């Protein structure tokens, strides 16, 4: 019995670890990559702690413009979706019971229709309307179309939120207001609307987030106003750097704070309505669950980050890192040279063929996992007598099976001492090495940053 229980607990624990790892693991990993100076988003090898991706992010015109467009469209969508959703939910309570489910199905259908279809149909429809009216620029405007297109289904989300709240509304309150002399408009404004306020806030947040993250629909309607998601997807096509991780960190942080704020508001309105008693001293929700504790930790982290970002500079670390790398490579090169010398000496002494022993030994000693890495090693050494050049071979190549193939070119093209800096990032991608030469060629002097 006892061992069964114990086993059950362990199983449960393992399950939770796996489950939460699955849920938030990717976010956490991505979060760390935002602070690693490696040029490709990665956490191993960890190079230097840096904020440079954040400043890079804020210097990227396209991303900033995307964020701006996302916000404009987000606010537009919030206003439109919340209004439509509220109206639709109110009508739902007025509709004759017989038609209610039909009406509900029609209103809810956009959620089930693929976003792609909504995007195309919005584009086609409004272009048609515009043509019929003899070409109205507004109707072909990317912001207008995107707001309209997104709202078709986001309004349905909002309506669901409102319907849930409305179901708890006591229609007797409206009657009481009317009985006390209020007009229907007054009853709506003073009784129903305040009751709906928390739902309106939730729906607005939901609508904004849904709009902000939307891609499927927007991709057809954005016209000349690309949103953040559109920009990101276009950027990814041409290679990706950790400033995207930095953006992710910012978005996750904002979302998490948004959720926390919403929770606080929700609690407060519950306290107001008398559902839960307000507690004295520290608010209990602070300790209520693990998530909020994490949030608090996160906010402290954020504060620490903002304060240290003023003074911290990773330059020293980077220099150290490079130095360490160079040293490491020097040792490897020395070892290779020694081995080669030894092999030549041995061959000379024993009269055996030089090739066999000459290729075997450097391959193992150089730490090259690449199948071809070793083959070229002797050539490398011959071509690159300079001591700095070895960095690319030693550090970047081993993880990539093809990395070694291009090494000779690297070395030829980039003899400068800084060139190695971008290369260490390569191991995270099997193709990382393939791109290296271009990087190095384009930016031989600056180290590819």
């Amino acid at each position, binding site marked *: 019995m006892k061992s069964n229980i114990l086993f059950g607990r362990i199983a449960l624990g393992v399950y939770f670890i796996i489950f939460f790892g699955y849920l938030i693991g990717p976010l956490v990993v991505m979060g760390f990559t935002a602070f690693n100076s490696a040029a490709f988003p990665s956490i191993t090898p960890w190079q230097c702690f840096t904020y440079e991706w954040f400043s890079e992010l804020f210097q990227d015109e396209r991303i900033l413009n995307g964020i701006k467009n996302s916000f404009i469209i987000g606010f537009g969508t919030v206003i439109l979706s919340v209004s439509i959703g509220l109206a639709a939910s109110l009508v739902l309570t007025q509709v004759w019971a017989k038609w209610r489910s039909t009406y509900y199905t029609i209103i809810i259908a956009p959620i089930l229709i693929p976003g792609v279809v909504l995007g195309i149909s919005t584009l086609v429809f409004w272009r048609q309307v515009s043509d019929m009216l003899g070409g109205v620029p507004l109707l072909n405007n990317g912001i207008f179309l995107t707001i309209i297109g997104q709202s078709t289904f986001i309004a349905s989300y909002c309506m669901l939120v409102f319907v849930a709240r409305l179901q708890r509304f006591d229609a007797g309150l409206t009657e009481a207001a*009317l009985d*006390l002399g209020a007009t229907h408009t*007054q009853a709506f404004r003073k009784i129903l609307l305040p009751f709906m306020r928390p739902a309106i806030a939730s729906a607005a947040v939901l609508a904004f987030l849904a709009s902000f993250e939307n891609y499927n629909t927007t991709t057809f309607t954005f016209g000349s106003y690309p949103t953040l998601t559109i920009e990101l997807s276009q950027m990814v096509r041409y290679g990706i750097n950790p400033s995207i991780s930095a953006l992710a960190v910012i978005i996750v942080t904002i979302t998490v704070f948004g959720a926390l704020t919403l929770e606080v508001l929700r609690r407060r309105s519950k306290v*107001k309505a*008398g559902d839960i008693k307000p507690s004295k001293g520290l608010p209990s929700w602070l300790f209520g669950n693990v998530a909020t504790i994490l949030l608090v930790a996160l906010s402290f982290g954020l504060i620490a980050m903002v304060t240290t970002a003023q003074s911290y500079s990773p330059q020293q670390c980077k220099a150290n890192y490079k130095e360490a790398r160079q040293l490491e490579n020097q040792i490897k090169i020395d070892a290779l040279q020694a081995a080669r010398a030894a092999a030549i000496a041995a061959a000379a002494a024993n009269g055996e063929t030089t090739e066999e022993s000459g290729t075997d030994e450097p391959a193992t000693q150089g730490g090259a996992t690449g199948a071809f890495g070793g083959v070229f090693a002797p050539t490398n050494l011959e071509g690159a007598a300079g001591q700095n050049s070895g960095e690319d071979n030693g550090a970047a190549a081993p993880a990539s099976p093809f990395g070694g193939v291009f090494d000779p070119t690297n070395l030829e093209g980039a003899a400068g001492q800084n060139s190695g800096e971008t290369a260490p990032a390569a191991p995270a991608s099997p193709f990382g090495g393939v791109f290296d030469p271009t990087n190095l060629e384009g930016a031989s002097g600056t180290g590819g940053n």
Partner: protein
Amino acid sequence: MSSGVDVNLENIWIKFGDFVAVREANVNINGGDFFSFLGPSGCGKTTILRAVSGFLNPSEGRVLIGGKDMAGLGPNKRPTALIFQNLALFPLMKVWENITFSMEVSGASAGERRKRADELLDMIALPGQGDKLPSELSGGQKQRVAIARALCAQPDVLLLDEPLSALDLKLRQHMRTELREIQQRVGITFIYITHDQGEALTMSDSVAVMRAGIIDQIGDGHAVYDTPATPFVASFVGENNVFRGKISAINGDEATIATNRSGELLSKITPAAVGKLNVGDDAMMFVRPEVLKMQEGDAKTTISAKVLNEEFEGNSYSIYLEGEGGKQIKMAMPNLGNDPHKAKGDMVSFSYDASNAVVMPAGDLASE
């Protein structure tokens, strides 16, 4: 304060589809009266009240308030204020905002409203509680806030839909007197709905007893209690012993009933049935437990029975008796310090005064 105005219901019918919720209601309520509708749950009381306040239109008939036909006027245009069964206080507004809501919608300034709220809070004995939320009040306090909110609208007619049903017994009794006092102070017409006959009798100038959409009797408490018009009223209002049988003789406003199990009994004919009873008709005779006396009287007003059980209730005793053929009879005696204490199984003879019994044509009884 506005003085009370008359309310007249003229031949009101209210139908929901095929279902007739109210049938041919004719009620005349005098201005300044405390008028009650009394009836079991589901008999159509709320429906009538909603017709008076304007939330629904009668299918037929007219509602007149102060002599004016209310047809086509919505609830916000009628000089009525309704206190809802569940009170319907606005949960997101403070007490003082609740109370002065009617002033707010008519555009009164916050200062005026605050002042009026304080006056009304004093009146309902909740001074200084204006800044609380309704959820922070007790049941009785909410009750009073609802009353103040309705009174603040200065209605000519106040409608109350079972306002005390959610309160505990003690508070209910307290609020009864309080409501009656408020009514007398403000002098407006109160129309009160209840399924509790005690409430109706203690507070009302006049009571209408309803059964399944039909008003069986309208009268003051005495009339309804002492001279019920129908078997339903007799059995619904207070406790009653019923004897079924056939009329064997009629003599003016008295009749002799050949009861099924208790022999021939003499009784007054209830006023509503005078002239409507004939010899040989099926009839019901009602005698209240408290008018039975533990002594022999005339042959036609004396019944013999066996003592089944006796219950002591502090201020009174209830004695449960079994007559001929298993006829159950209840008798109530005040506790005057001389416990008549009968042993179980004793045979006793008891009697009543024929003027305290009523006979009427047979009909439906109120189900327990």
